[in-house]
């Protein structure tokens, strides 16, 4: 996915660094991340790492890429260090359900508690026609109820966000005159940070003004960046971590394929949906792979679908081999009844079908015995450059290893093998 969410901890540091660099505004940021990676979680250790834990009242929140933490009672306000440690230890590794998704809490963010009156809303988000900048003086938990007070302006692609535009945006949102200069400076700086870091979203709900230091203070922020810009953001993003989305836990095999995918110029994707399923797919092409899964679901066998897997972009033989081997090893675990393996794909434009099949064939040979034990039947459908050789290799493999392999070319409809696969697991024919 091109857009990646980052943790509040990383987002705040990214924005603070950009503000300092860009407009010389120092937020005097004090922020800490507490997780298994940050050392043992006890008062003594945390005070050593962050002496200010003992000097100011604290705010503690899980930092797990989900919002609405206040509404879900997951925010600890105005706490001392003992309360903060207790709050974290009580919740660390516990399962919670947020937004319909259940996951484990693993990361917390800790900051000084800042008593405040004003709660401003500021959002910069990407749109096809430009960047939409929204501002309101009535931010916070009730932002949606006050949505009519949010004022927006669109900055066209490549254009600057001119100071008179910022001025009239804040004016339209009824900013108090005395605070206008600082707020205008801050909004301009945040937009610059958004641009310079290839962000696709910065949403502060809320931010306030720290009256004691006369600086803006970000109380809560969501940040998303454009993963495509990684090649030019190595410096700005050097400390940024890109976590899995909330509730998503990758098992070892999925992590292994992810690492293959990252190193490769091609695309290799694997998600395990149901380890006990009897229909396993390995489909070439991002578009086609979705349609194979659709067809399984449309035919009423979604509960039998073991996985989602996609390879494309002309992967090397060795990459296809490792990919197939990992996938096959998952497919053969459940041996309680028949298993169907669907090696599908559309008619390729430029991928060499025979070359990719060579890697898959080697993997099939490697797990031959287990495939037999799982009573597996393999269904192949593919077209494209060199497909005749590729299909012939598959047919020959079937004869060689005595596992039934049904082979179809572009004259057969793409998803026909889904029906065949279902028939196999249901009736053994």
């Amino acid at each position: 996915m091109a857009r990646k969410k980052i943790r509040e901890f990383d987002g705040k540091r990214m924005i603070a660094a950009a503000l300092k660099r860009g407009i010389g505004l120092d937020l005097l940021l004090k922020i800490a991340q507490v997780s298994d990676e940050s050392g043992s979680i006890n008062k003594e250790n945390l005070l050593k790492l962050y002496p200010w834990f003992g000097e100011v009242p604290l705010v503690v929140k899980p930092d797990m890429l989900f919002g609405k933490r206040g509404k879900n009672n997951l925010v600890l306000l105005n706490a001392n260090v003992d309360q903060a440690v207790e709050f974290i230890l009580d919740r660390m590794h516990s399962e919670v359900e947020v937004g319909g998704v259940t996951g484990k809490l693993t990361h917390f963010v800790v900051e000084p508690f800042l008593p405040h009156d004003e709660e401003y809303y500021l959002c910069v988000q990407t749109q096809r026609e430009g960047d939409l900048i929204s501002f309101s003086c009535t931010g916070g938990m009730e932002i949606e109820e006050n949505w009519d007070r949010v004022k927006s302006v669109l900055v066209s692609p490549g254009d600057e966000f001119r100071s008179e535009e910022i001025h009239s945006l804040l004016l339209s949102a009824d900013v108090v005159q005395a605070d206008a200069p600082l707020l205008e400076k801050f909004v301009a700086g945040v937009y610059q940070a958004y641009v310079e870091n290839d962000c696709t979203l910065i949403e502060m709900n809320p931010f306030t003004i720290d009256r004691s230091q006369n600086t803006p203070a970000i109380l809560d922020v969501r940040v998303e960046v454009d993963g495509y810009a990684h090649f030019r953001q190595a410096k700005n993003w050097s400390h940024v971590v890109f976590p899995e989305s909330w509730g998503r836990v990758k098992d070892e095999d999925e992590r292994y394929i992810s690492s293959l995918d990252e190193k490769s110029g091609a695309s290799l994707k694997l998600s395990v949906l149901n380890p006990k399923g009897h229909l396993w797919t390995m489909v070439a092409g991002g578009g086609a792979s979705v349609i194979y899964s659709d067809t399984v679901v449309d035919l009423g066998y979604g509960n039998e679908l073991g996985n989602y897997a996609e390879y494309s972009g002309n992967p090397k033989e060795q990459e296809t081999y490792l990919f197939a081997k990992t996938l096959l090893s998952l497919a053969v675990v459940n041996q309680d009844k028949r298993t169907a393996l669907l090696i599908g794909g559309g008619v390729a434009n430029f991928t060499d079908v025979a070359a990719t099949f060579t890697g898959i064939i080697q993997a099939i040979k490697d797990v031959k015995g287990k495939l037999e034990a799982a009573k597996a039947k393999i269904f192949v459908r593919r077209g494209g450059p060199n497909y005749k050789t590729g299909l012939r290799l598959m047919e020959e493999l079937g004869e060689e290893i005595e596992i039934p392999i049904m082979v179809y070319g572009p004259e057969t409809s793409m998803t026909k093998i889904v029906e065949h696969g279902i028939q196999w697991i249901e009736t053994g024919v």
Partner: protein
Amino acid sequence: MGGSMEGGSLFSRETQALFYNYKAAPVQRMLDFDYLCRREKPSIAAIVSPGSKPGGFRKAFFGNTEIAIPVYGSSAEAAAAHPKADVFVNYSSHRSAYQSTLDCLPVPSIRVLVIIAEGVPERDVKVLIAECKKSNKVMIGPATVGGIQAGGFKIGDTAGTVENIIRCKLHRPGSIGFVSKSGGLSNEMYNVLARTTDGLFEGVAVGGDAYPGTTLSDHVRRFQDIPEIKMIVVLGELGGSDEYGVSEMLKSGVLTKPIVAWISGSCATYFNSAEVQFGHAGARSGNLDESAASKLTALREAGAICPTSFEGFEPLIAETYMKLVESGELVPKPEIEPQMLPGDLHQAIKAGQVRKATNMVCTISDDRGEEPSYVGVPISEVIGQSYSVGDVISLLWFKRLLPPWATKFIELVLVTAADHGPCVSGAHNSIVAARAGKDLVSSLCSGLLTIGPRFGGAVDQAAINFRNACDSDTSAEAFVEGLKKKGLRVEGIGHRIKTAENRDMRVELLSGYAKENFPSTKYLSYAETVEGYTLQKANNLVLNIDGCIGALFVDMLSGCESFSDVEVGEILELGALNGIFVLSRSIGLIGHALDQKRMKQPLYRHPHEDVLYTQPERPYKKSKSDPDSKMDM
């Protein structure tokens, strides 16, 4: 939506493109398509290779013949020379696609810009979209395979192989307009359309990015204005809200042609909702539902013809098409025979369809696999198991692995013969060449070219002579006197300063090594017998280093149990021993060349006083009319 997309087709049979960042395969695929379609001119007018100098060209086949496609250093130059080319096909990487496209945007003759690369940052793409809109240009991509007008113009790799193009009837126009996000599925659908209808008229894959340059609805809107298109097929997918643009146009009556549509992604409900995120960014998530089911419902309600599954898509396309044919609204376009292309040699060989005699044979190494190999030994093993230079020589010169005592001997010889000072012919020539300002290779070669019968070549001949004599049991006396009778030198015998009392240490050490490690030193013993005989004639007629190496090489080859007698003879006849000397002495010659260059030595000129100038009486031209004129002078 992108720039103005009304007004019909983007391409025709005359359309020509500038191809940015040369890639052999897609260029050839475009030209093969052109030939199948019987286009008069190839669809690529020029290639842009950033920074290349003018005057270059790239070769490609146009049917049976090769053509030269001109290469330019910038898009502006290429466009100036080829003002009729109006499509820019950009094959640069995701890192440089933005700048190269931006550079091409001001070129007035370019109307359509295609970006193939996947991974162009969104911020950059948005600028390109905005610029295209301002200048009323059309962008296809990024992250796309491109698009095709059947029988007219094809972008890059679209529609794959020639065989697929013919099977899909893409070499002549049909009546269907098709658009999808995915390039792979486009090709699949061209097959479906060929099975169920009179074929494609125009097809576009807009690319899978969040902000494609032109959207599904942009192209559907365009298809409405193309009279040849009688029916529109759309393959959408979950995520984004572009399909609602189509349903809105249907509702408002802008679209009147029949639209058969499917949205993939109904499986998303079976995925853990945490895994697949299609949500809008921003606090105020969109009002529109981006799921496949919702978009399909909207399209269906707006009047699109939608199946209930992908499996139902093909029959529904067939049914809709047949209705149009039966009602007379669609008159099927004629089938036209493609202009058949000659088979491609590489593909035919790959498919095992033809055989072709090779022009060259190689038995010592192979660079085709994952890594190069020496006589089947992969290079990783050569490194990993610390093969020596001697091992590698025995592999590449003799195609076998000789025992360690033999390869060690080869290395001793290499070390021993590496240099013999600056005065010998080879080193002298290398030094002179280096001082004349010649490069390293020329200096080395200048020295190497002196190696022959007089300089360095004695080893070969000594080895052959000693072997023949020893094998035929010729006595030392008969051997020496026989050569003398023929007027030949006894190669390997004699030294400028060394004598029986003052032995050459190199000979001593090599002989000592051999006697200790070789299974037999029969030929060395024979050479020593010869030396015994010649020493009776003069005190400096000792076995020299050439003779010693020559004799010991024969001992090595004969004693390592790897070669037959015939093979040993062949190795000597082929000059392998001379090869050892050339290899060894190259080390010294390179050293001398580097030495001279490092010291910035000036051009060498031999001093006059070192040359004896002596000339015969000067000759004169003879005159025909006066043959005796010289005599008068």
